[in-house]
């Protein structure tokens, strides 16, 4: 009897718990509802976590300063754990249940692509925080994004190579999502930028020795530089192997390694490595007359003071998305999703952490190559390439 009773009691307790959470969720209603679906946990949490923190911090600040159009913002964030199917359900929930007027979110390209049809159908503006070029190409009326594309990173690198008189390169890329996407973009952008790819090697995300691939590249005649698109520890190992093999050409990394971790992992071998990155990384080192300086320095200081962890470019994408939206709402002077959409598309001269944004009906990203800064690692620090 006791056992059975305890079992029953636990069931009742569980039911009560669920009922309590439901009634909680129904409560609270605010004036301006902005939605977000982010990979706060899971493998892509390095994207979603800083995005979530950034959004919450700045919504708090906007509200403390009186909100938008005299109304407070309520931010609704759901955690997709990086899963496209979950993201899709949460997007439905934001549209149908929460009644949001705009969306800033979607940490990865997969999640974003799964959610786009819903927002397009509901005619609610959606500012994505993911990298893939497919999000805005072809242009979809209600979909925008803030991060630069992989193709732009390739173009920036090729531009720097051309300036140094390099035209023949070897490519070694990781086979994770990021490395794969960027390899594809770099290969297809090569010709138009006057670059010839002589060697094309790949490695797995968990490989811990890339000497064979690099030896192949070294033995390829005519290679003037090596480019390594990849993410995580792979590029650090490539950098170390590159030094061990004393390959005597410049090494280029991608924006995928733009974090302190990379310099720590690669150590001395990272000396002289060049990569394109957001201005956020070198915020304090920017010249004072740089129009982006105050934006990135303020964001960096605010984020690091509040969360006590180093700022990341991914959080910066969320900052840009939120403020592009906030300014569009102010200009529209209305909470009608259609009017907000029009004003997002009219965004001109917005300075964000990723660079200067000028959107148009045919460009829902609005960044140009100046968004990237070419950095070189010198004495274990990022320095701007003049």
């Amino acid at each position, binding site marked *: 009897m006791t056992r*059975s009773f305890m079992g029953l009691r636990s*069931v009742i307790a*569980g039911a009560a718990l669920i009922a309590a959470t439901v009634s909680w969720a129904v409560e609270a209603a605010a004036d301006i509802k902005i939605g977000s679906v982010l990979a706060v946990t899971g493998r892509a949490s390095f994207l979603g976590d800083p995005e979530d923190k950034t959004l919450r911090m700045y919504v708090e600040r906007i509200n403390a300063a009186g909100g938008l159009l005299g109304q407070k913002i309520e931010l609704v964030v759901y955690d997709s754990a990086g899963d496209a199917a979950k993201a899709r359900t949460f997007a439905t929930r934001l549209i*149908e*249940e929460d009644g949001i007027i705009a969306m800033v979110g979607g940490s990865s390209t997969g999640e974003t*692509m799964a959610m786009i*049809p819903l927002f397009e159908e509901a005619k609610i503006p959606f500012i994505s925080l993911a990298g893939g070029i497919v999000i805005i190409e072809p242009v979809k009326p209600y979909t925008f994004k803030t991060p630069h594309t992989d193709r732009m990173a390739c173009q920036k690198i090729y531009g720097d190579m051309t300036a140094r008189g390099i035209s023949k390169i070897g490519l070694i890329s990781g086979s994770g999502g990021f490395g794969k996407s960027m390899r594809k973009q770099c290969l297809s952008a090569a010709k138009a930028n006057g670059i010839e790819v002589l060697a094309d090697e790949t490695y797995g995300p968990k490989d811990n020795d890339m000497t064979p691939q690099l030896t192949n590249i070294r033995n390829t005649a005519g290679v003037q530089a090596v480019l390594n698109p990849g993410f995580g520890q792979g590029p650090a190992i490539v950098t170390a192997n590159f030094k061990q093999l004393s390959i005597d050409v410049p090494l280029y990394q991608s924006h995928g390694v733009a974090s302190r971790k990379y310099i720590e992992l690669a150590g001395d071998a990272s000396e002289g490595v060049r990569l394109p990155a957001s201005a956020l990384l070198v915020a304090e080192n920017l010249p004072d007359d740089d129009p982006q300086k105050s934006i990135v320095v303020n964001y960096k200081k605010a984020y690091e003071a509040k969360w006590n962890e180093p700022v990341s470019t991914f959080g910066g994408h969320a900052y840009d998305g939120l403020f592009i939206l906030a300014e569009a709402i102010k200009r529209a002077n209305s909470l009608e999703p259609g009017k907000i959409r029009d004003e997002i598309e009219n965004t001109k001269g917005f300075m964000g952490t990723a660079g200067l944004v000028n959107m148009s009906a045919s460009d829902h990203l609005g960044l140009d190559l100046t968004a990237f800064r070419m950095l070189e690692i010198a004495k274990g620090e990022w320095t701007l390439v003049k």
Partner: protein
Amino acid sequence: MAALRQPRTGGLLVLAAIIAVLPFLLPNAYYFDVVILVGINALVVVGLNLLIGYAGQISLGHAGFFGLGAYASAVLPARFDIPPLAALVLGAIGVGLLAVVIGRPILRLKGHYLAVATLGMGLLIFMLLSNEQDLTGGPDGMAVQRLTILGYKLHGVHTWYWIVGGALLTGTWLALNLIDSPTGRALRALHDSEIAAQVNGVDVVRHKLTVFVISAVFASLAGSLSAHYSGFITPNSAGFLHSIELVTMVVLGGMGSTFGGIVGAAVLTALPQFLTVFHEYEHAALGLIMMVCMIYLRDGLLPSLRQRLHWRRS
């Protein structure tokens, strides 16, 4: 009256009644979406429960079959111009054949070894789907065409609700029939003791393989439906975590109870939606609820509750 107490008639009627009444209670498309996801997961779980609950064989790779079905429905129409409905059938046949080929060697294994072998199979499928970028779009996934039947494009949550509801009802009916057939009895026999079953003339190898293939085909069909419904898929649907989720649904709902599995799928699909109020503690809350359930309702939600009710009545 006695027939109504039988799961094959009574249980099926209850399920049909729930499916028929639910649309009148759901306020908007979001709830429909959650219920459709429950239905898709339940379809896989009904199949998987035959394997785990009745035949007593574990599979940690069923999301692989789900993913293959989903990608068959995505890739065949997009890259080879095969009509979506034919792709769904081809996918199911392909997965069935694959299950025969893989099942033969790995079903010889038992316990932990079988778990690891099926796990490996699931991981291989996941890697295949994420690495064949030109075909599958790689880790970023790919869009799926709408399902057209007789020139009519299936669209909207209401249409999909009835499709998934119908599929679940049919799947459950088939599973219940199988359980009550000689095959079903043979399966339960080999669950209790393989040697005893063999001595009594049960062809153990063939029966294990049959149920493995059936459950794989269930997963493949559910995968195809899910792909067409959501219109976009990523290799995550074939991933290890999804496999674990499916097994958890079977165990939480009740191994060897077809309707229990459906309850398990419903709880585990819908619960995270309620738990979002806990924000970052959501996963901890989910884990806690599951632990409490498994400690106090050891046979799974439905069988334990039913047992308690019977016990009180007598």
